[in-house]
């Protein structure tokens, strides 16, 4: 993993924890290839819609782009990489 990706993932973890109000976790607690929903990080459907709003407000990624690529929500890494790639395009 290059340094840019490592940095992005670390910041994205912090943003996710802050946005989703996960008070009992630090960025180190989030494993990159962990599933986001159900097992793994244990997020639920409310978190899913909140993440979509976070992507809009903080990363300027609109809902349609997210709707077309639902598979990016599989793990933390897939989501982070998607956001990093879209952010780089802007």
């Amino acid at each position, binding site marked *: 993993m290059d340094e840019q990706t490592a940095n992005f993932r670390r910041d994205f973890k912090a943003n996710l924890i802050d946005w989703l109000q996960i008070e009992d976790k630090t960025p180190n607690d989030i494993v990159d290839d962990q599933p986001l929903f159900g097992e793994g990080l244990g997020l639920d459907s*409310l978190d899913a819609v909140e993440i979509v709003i976070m992507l809009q407000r903080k990363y300027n990624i609109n809902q349609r782009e997210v709707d077309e690529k639902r598979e990016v929500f599989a793990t933390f890494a897939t989501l982070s990489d998607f956001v990093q790639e879209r952010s780089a395009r802007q």
Partner: protein
Amino acid sequence: MFIGNFVAYSSQALPGFELLTPELLKRTRERAALRWADRYTTLIVSAALELLGAGAADDGLALITATAFGTHRTTFSTLDDILDFPEAQILPTRFSHSVHNAAAAYVGAALKMRGPAIALAGFEQVLCEALELAKTFLYGGLCTRAMVIAAEEKALLTEKAHELWPERFAADMPEGVVGFLLSLSTQDNRRGRLLLNRSARLSLSSPFTFGGDAKLFQALARADATSEHHL
């Protein structure tokens, strides 16, 4: 009806009320996994946890919540979103919590309560009506016990209420929550009988007196199984 348990918390030192502390709310949030829950919900869940104590809920336990101003802080947060952000970007979880029955949903999930759950709202005698409704559910066989919880949260709207309507709302209204655990069975009696009389209805000058006069809550705080409380 018999009172199995009674709790009352307030942010001000009111007779008959325990002090509502940040520690109590923090404890509630940890016990009940209230990551997204707002303060209004936390007040109500706090009362529910204290009422049930070490006991367990069963399908015969009903929940009735009552409020006048309700989830006004969260409703206004949703309006902040609508005013400050594009309409398509308002926070969905905030909105979900701006409905009055969200708190009842959290109580149900936290305590595994599948009995009837109803949220009431109103400015006239909402706590009295909630207690009457508990009696109605108990006599109607919809439940074997009933939790009645009334809460008011302090935030911008309640802080401005006196300025907007001084004759109706006192300045510096406290926030707080009261809860009753009620039953028709003498076996559940710990704090005495609660006798409701519709024709002797007390008038409500402010929702922060929770539908009764202070003497009721002082008496409840000291009550035992032999006590009788008239409302």
